[in-house]
């Protein structure tokens, strides 16, 4: 990875002055990232809550519950971080999750072939249809967002504010306003609440996907072009990148992640939760931005999104166990968000952006 160019021995031919940049060692760069700072904060908070609660907070059951509640938020935050990296926004991720889960649940019930005692004769088909229904709905939702933003050039904030309303409304219409329940309990026992060792399987899924996105951002052409677009859309266009097509793919990808989260949601509760996701999109923005992803585009921190999600979850769980109203969690996360971004503004690390 070391790619420093050494000046040729005859330094006389140096045609560009090299005073502007001092290259810092890798470990120092890693340690001074926002992601590292938020991770440190996570660890400190975790230890404080563990000590303060005298055990219950650090118990296996509680950690599992924290991981489970972080799973869906993480998938949304990671998808949103990619979008932000390209300089576009998405307010509709929570609505996407709800709509996808409603469509998936309705499809499962529609194809179900029940036995009189409530079992399923075609369980694997039902589950497969449910998974496909959730994922495809999520992608279609993302596709619509992408078409509006990338091809019709509607401001992403406006377009997704619109699809947020449309998606939420549609979910209520399809479900008739009541949560869709009665799904096969196997999706909960064999996936939603299943643990792999001590780790909930959905969390494993989310971590694997997050790792994939991390690799995508860091090491692939797709990631590099995403950042190029976010960094300077006109420059990306001029070097020949098909910017609208790329944005469309990104929006579909974020939709797919919301679709995956929606199936995890179903398998967690064996039911949809129509009212449980109204803040999901903003929480995802918070997690991504706390972690160091730039709202203006050009910089994505996938790890930062992970630790940012963790921060919200730890605060939530910790305050509840400490007997403090969880309303304070909202305030605490808000304070951290403003501090993290504010400190960055004032620090010397903030470079003049061209």
């Amino acid at each position, binding site marked *: *990875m070391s*790619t*420093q*160019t050494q*000046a*040729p021995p005859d*330094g006389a*031919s*140096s*045609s*560009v*002055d*090299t*005073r*502007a*940049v*001092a*290259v810092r060692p890798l470990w120092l760069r890693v340690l001074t990232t926002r992601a590292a700072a938020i991770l440190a904060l996570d660890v400190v908070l975790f230890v404080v809550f563990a000590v303060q609660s005298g055990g219950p907070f650090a118990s296996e059951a509680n950690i599992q519950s924290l991981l489970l509640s972080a799973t869906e938020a993480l998938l949304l935050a990671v998808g949103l971080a990619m979008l932000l990296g390209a300089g576009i926004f998405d307010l509709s991720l929570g609505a996407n999750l709800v709509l996808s889960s409603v469509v998936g649940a309705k499809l499962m019930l529609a194809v179900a072939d029940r036995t009189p005692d409530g079992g399923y004769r075609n369980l694997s088909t039902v589950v497969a249809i449910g998974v496909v229904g959730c994922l495809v709905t999520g992608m279609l939702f993302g596709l619509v967002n992408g078409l509006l933003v990338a091809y019709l050039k509607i401001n992403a904030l406006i377009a997704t504010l619109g699809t947020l309303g449309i998606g939420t409304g549609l979910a209520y219409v399809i479900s008739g306003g009541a949560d869709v329940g009665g799904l096969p309990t196997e999706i909960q026992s064999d996936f939603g609440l299943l643990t792999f060792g001590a780790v909930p399987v959905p969390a494993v899924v989310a971590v694997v996907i997050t790792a994939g996105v991390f*690799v*995508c951002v860091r*090491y*692939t*052409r*797709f990631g*590099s*072009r995403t*950042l*190029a677009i*976010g*960094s*300077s859309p*006109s*420059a*990306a*266009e*001029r*070097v*020949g*990148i098909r910017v609208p097509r790329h944005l469309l793919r990104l929006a579909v990808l974020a939709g797919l992640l919301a679709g995956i989260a929606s199936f995890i949601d179903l398998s967690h509760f064996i039911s949809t939760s129509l009212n449980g996701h109204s803040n999901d999109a903003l929480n995802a923005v918070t997690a991504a931005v706390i972690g160091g992803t*730039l709202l203006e585009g*050009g*910089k994505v921190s996938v790890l930062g999104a992970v630790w940012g999600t963790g921060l919200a979850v730890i605060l939530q769980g910790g305050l509840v166990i400490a007997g403090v109203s969880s309303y304070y969690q909202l305030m605490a996360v808000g304070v951290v968000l403003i501090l993290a971004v504010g400190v960055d503004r004032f620090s010397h690390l903030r*470079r*003049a*952006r*061209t």
Partner: protein
Amino acid sequence: MSTARRRAPDADEAPPEGAAQPPQATEASPGAATKVAIAAEHVGKRFGHVEALRDASLRAERGQIVALFGDNGAGKSTFLRILQGIHQPDAGRLVVDDQPVSMTSVRDAQALGVDTVHQDLSLAPDLSVVDNMFVGHEVLRRGPLGRMGVLDRREMTERTEAALRELSINLPSLTVPISDLSGGQRQAVAVARAVMWSSTAVLMDEPTAALGARQSELVCDLMRTVAGRGLGVVVVSHDLPRILAIADRVVILFRGRTALDVPAADLTVPDVVATMVGYGQEESAA
């Protein structure tokens, strides 16, 4: 100098017909005498009621630096965009690498080996030097990883190092984001990138506009190096003295037409300014 003063008005008499056929073409690069890198012949372009270009011609041979001068509104930007493939001319024809061509996009121009150094450089400030050099032309790993879109940063880094070395550009690091570089360093990266991806011609839009004196000199040296590699260089600039000193030919646009197309050695800055502001043009029109 006195001969130059006489020459300029002479050339003014001729323009519309003969402008694109420079009589003494071999001057700059005897080795590649008749190889046209990029040329536009009698190009016209209208935008609604505005006639941006009427009869603009320009011809850059391989190894030549052609300066494109003109006052604001003379049509330089439109002309450059036509050469870049962004605009399509209403009249006239384009030649790239000795072949008549029609280009409908930047990608077409790039496929023909014509690349541009934009005035704003068009670099992605958050991306590293290496990623900027290759953005849009990324090199992928061999094998299954490559099919999944994984970049071959090692190869990209090596080729970036080679490309920068060839132009005698030294940077402290290729992994720092562009926003950490100085203005001159950014300019150098933008030039190196354009050179890397162009096989016939490099177009430069105001390459010295944002630079100090020393860095401007370095960019001019770069332009000579680029031309020396057998590429045609077309440079749009207001930096008359500096560009005049290194150009082989000078093309001056006045109100959308080529008012002058002569070897740079025959011109002085006052000649250029006089033609740019239309001195002599009004007379011939009257």
